[in-house]
């Protein structure tokens, strides 16, 4: 039988704020355990939550970014469960009246087509603390620094049909939240965590099969593997004549398999009720419009503009628009040198290569966009060749100054003077009679030998195009 997978994702996006959602404790990553856990985060008696304004700004920006309806009146609820990293005994979240309703994103599939994935809702909630089970001689250690960190939980429709689609969707959400400065997107620090709901059904069937939920997958690679494992497992179960149990699973990257989180669990019942410590949060159209007016250009729009405005290929445009800082870098350099194609190539090849070698982000580049633009300008006006430019690029990277300073200091100006190149060519022709004979006998390829010799003699400073012309002319004489 042919099976079809049905996948929905719940993505927890950590909002990039200075302080927590309900307290003034810092959200900075990597601090000493419990050094950023205040009485509100610890759930001490008598404290009250106070909502951080920034989380609403970011949630609304996200909602506008996916074309969603904004909840003008959103309400917080309590989700009750017991776990030591949740000291209050409940998580404050939004159930019935979330801040973001509906919306959709378009993902690009490997075959080049696009697919629209629906977003059901996105709601604000607080993160829990962290439990450490080793090193405490039979006890568990609790770090509440993360407790109260603002999260936006983005719930998709079950619109995806393969692990690849799910990953494409997750990557787009990641790109979007980074574009919008909603999140820092640091996956390794838990800034984005996915729960994957997976079920399978015979292809063509419209009703859904029993789903499982694989929780807390924190990388795209693991997400793909976890979903593929789960699809294969469910097919095995059904083909063996058994039924899939509605279960909560954990993905174990080391074993590349999913396993049930709790062996014996009473049916979960979170007994939600409206959070009595918080009033409804009401925002108005003016507030939403002010955020809309500050939205940056979004990824898809940027790709379209890059192809239209600069004549870049879709592939180049997509790569350059992947991150906002990279796109901005490209545009700034292209504006200075006036050649977008040249800039696109340099950013993609030389710059990206160097950044990868040194494991740096674009924002940490030792060559600024202005410096690259000025360097490319010198290729453009034929002061230097593309080959010499690579050496100049390295020199700028090492902090030796601007392109013009380095070109002047090292005497790298291209020799474009026919008078200067002529005698060099004459000498090389005189010294290589065998090759001259071959060329005259019709072996065009030998031309490359002469050009190479001239370039070598001029330490690469001669203009290759001009050398080509002069050599050709002189050989024919």
């Amino acid at each position, binding site marked *: 039988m042919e099976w079809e997978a049905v996948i929905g994702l719940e993505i927890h996006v950590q909002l990039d*704020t*200075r*302080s927590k959602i309900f*307290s*003034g*404790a*810092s959200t900075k990553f990597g601090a*000493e*355990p*419990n*050094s*950023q*856990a*205040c*009485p509100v985060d*610890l759930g*001490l008696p008598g404290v009250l939550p*106070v*909502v*951080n*304004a*920034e*989380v*609403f700004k970011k949630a609304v920006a996200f909602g506008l970014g996916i074309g969603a309806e904004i909840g003008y009146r959103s*309400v917080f609820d309590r989700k*009750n469960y*017991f*776990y*030591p990293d949740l000291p209050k005994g409940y998580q404050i979240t939004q159930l019935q*009246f979330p801040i973001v309703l509906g919306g959709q994103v378009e993902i690009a599939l490997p075959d080049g087509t696009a697919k629209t994935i629906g977003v059901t809702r996105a709601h604000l909630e607080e993160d829990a603390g962290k*439990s*450490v*089970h080793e090193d*405490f001689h*039979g*006890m*568990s*250690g*609790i*770090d*509440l620094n993360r407790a109260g960190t603002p999260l936006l939980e983005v719930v998709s429709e079950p619109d995806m049909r393969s692990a690849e689609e799910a990953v494409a969707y997750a990557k787009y959400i990641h790109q979007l939240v980074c574009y919008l400065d909603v999140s820092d997107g640091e996956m390794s620090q838990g800034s984005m965590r996915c729960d994957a709901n997976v079920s399978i059904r015979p292809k063509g069937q419209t009703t859904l099969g029993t789903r499982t939920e694989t929780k807390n997958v924190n990388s795209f690679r693991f997400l793909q593997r976890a979903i593929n494992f789960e699809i294969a497992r469910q097919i095995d179960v059904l083909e063996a004549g058994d039924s899939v149990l509605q279960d909560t699973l954990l993905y174990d990257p080391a074993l590349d398999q999913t396993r049930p989180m*709790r*062996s014996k669990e*009473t049916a979960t*019942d979170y*007994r939600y009720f*409206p959070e*009595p410590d*918080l*009033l*409804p*949060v*009401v925002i108005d159209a003016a507030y939403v419009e002010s955020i809309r007016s500050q939205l940056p250009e979004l990824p898809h729009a940027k790709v379209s503009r890059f192809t239209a405005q600069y004549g870049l290929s879709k592939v180049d445009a997509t790569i350059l628009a992947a991150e906002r800082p990279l796109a901005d870098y490209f545009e700034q350099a292209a504006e200075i040198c006036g050649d977008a194609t040249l800039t696109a190539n340099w950013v993609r090849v030389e710059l990206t290569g160097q950044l990868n070698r040194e494991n740096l982000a674009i924002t940490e580049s030792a060559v600024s966009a202005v410096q690259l633009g000025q360097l490319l300008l010198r290729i453009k006006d034929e002061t230097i060749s593309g080959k010499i430019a690579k050496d100049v690029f390295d020199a700028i990277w090492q902090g030796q100054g601007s392109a013009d300073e380095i070109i002047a200091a090292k005497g790298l100006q291209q020799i474009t003077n026919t008078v200067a190149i002529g005698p060099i060519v004459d000498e090389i022709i005189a010294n290589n009679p065998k090759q001259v004979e071959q060329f005259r006998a019709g072996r065009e390829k030998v031309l490359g030998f002469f050009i190479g010799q001239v370039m070598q003699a001029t330490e690469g400073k001669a203009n290759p195009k001009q050398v080509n012309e002069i050599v050709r002319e002189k050989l024919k004489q």
Partner: protein
Amino acid sequence: MQVDPSVVTAIAELAQLQLEEEDLQENIDSMSNILALVDQMQSVDTSAIEPMANPLDAVQTLRPDEVTEPDRREAFQSIAPATEAGFYLVPKVIE
């Protein structure tokens, strides 16, 4: 709604309350009474009334995104039953 012993037991378990066998009936009775009152309230026609999330007729004030809480870990941990290396210690919670 009919409150039977299994409902009370399940709620007690979710709330992590230890319920003695002899207290079961009393809980069933009082819960039934509460639900009877709810039933009575539900007979009122509220179709034209917007659901209320909070009894106060007010909206939430938001605070600016600023770090205002200093690190007072030492003070907080001085009243905790067990701590180590900055962590609060609890009985092991993983299987």
